[in-house]
């Protein structure tokens, strides 16, 4: 394997970390939403933390190895599809961070209710199914998939 193949492998591995970690977080979040008890929702939302190092490694790795490949493969500074991918990458990161902060707030409420009788309140149920938070999470997922689409399609190249 030459240098470019190594860079491509590491770039793709980082993309796997990002999408696989995000998928794991989304599945755990969906399972938490369907929980019967606050203790169960809190426990499942706490497990999302296990996926975070993978997501962070993916976010940093895709950027680092992507920029390295940009230089290595000789694409010009004005290559539109690379800039488009970077915009969606930044959007996905920002939306993912916002969704994560909401999940932390929900987890804190769930832990409080778990300690106080472990019965699901209307407030917690509403927070778990908050349409705005769900929209942010879906938008983060769509932005991540958009990066994948652009990287594979390479429009204009």
């Amino acid at each position: 394997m030459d240098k470019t193949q190594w860079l491509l492998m590491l770039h793709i591995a980082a993309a796997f970390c990002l999408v696989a970690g995000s998928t794991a977080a989304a599945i755990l979040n969906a399972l938490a939403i369907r929980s019967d008890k606050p203790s169960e929702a809190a426990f499942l939302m706490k497990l999302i933390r296990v996926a975070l190092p993978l997501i962070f490694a993916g976010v940093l790795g895709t950027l680092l190895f992507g920029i390295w490949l940009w230089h290595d493969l000789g694409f010009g500074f004005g290559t539109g599809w690379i800039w488009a991918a970077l915009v969606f990458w930044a959007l996905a990161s920002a939306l993912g961070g916002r969704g994560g902060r909401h999940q932390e707030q929900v987890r804190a409420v769930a832990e409080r209710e778990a300690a106080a009788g472990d019965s699901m309140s209307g407030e917690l149920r509403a927070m778990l199914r908050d349409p705005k938070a769900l929209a942010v999470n879906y938008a983060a997922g769509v932005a991540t998939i958009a990066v994948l689409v652009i990287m594979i399609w390479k429009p204009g190249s």
Partner: protein
Amino acid sequence: MIVADYSRPFWPLFLHVLGAMTTVGAILTVVVLTYVAWNRPDAAFLRRATFAALLTAIPFYVLLRVFAEVMYSDEKDAFAGSDPTWVGIGYITSDAGFLILLITIGLAYWWKRSEKPVAGRIVAVLSTLLLLMLTVAMLAMSGKWGS
């Protein structure tokens, strides 16, 4: 040359890669849930969550496997009857992996119904094996080992 190696029709490659990435995410979830449940065999919600996470892996795995086959049937002539190492690793992983996935789902169902900790531990080991196989296949295919 290398860019050409990685250039393929959009839809089959996109759906194959998306299926692979989401399958790894679903199996990773199962691995996390089963190892947490290892020390909490009384937690029924972890058994239910494991089974549900495994079921989500099925459509992802089908996406991975079907579009791998679509790409292979389009490109096999280029290999002139001698598939490179990365194609072989991909085939072994996807075929054996699907069998492991189905067995794991069966065991997870048994675990959910019987509440026997040993069933959960077998699910943990098998899902870890599947995750390792998928990781090796991902590295082999993205690095184009043997080509």
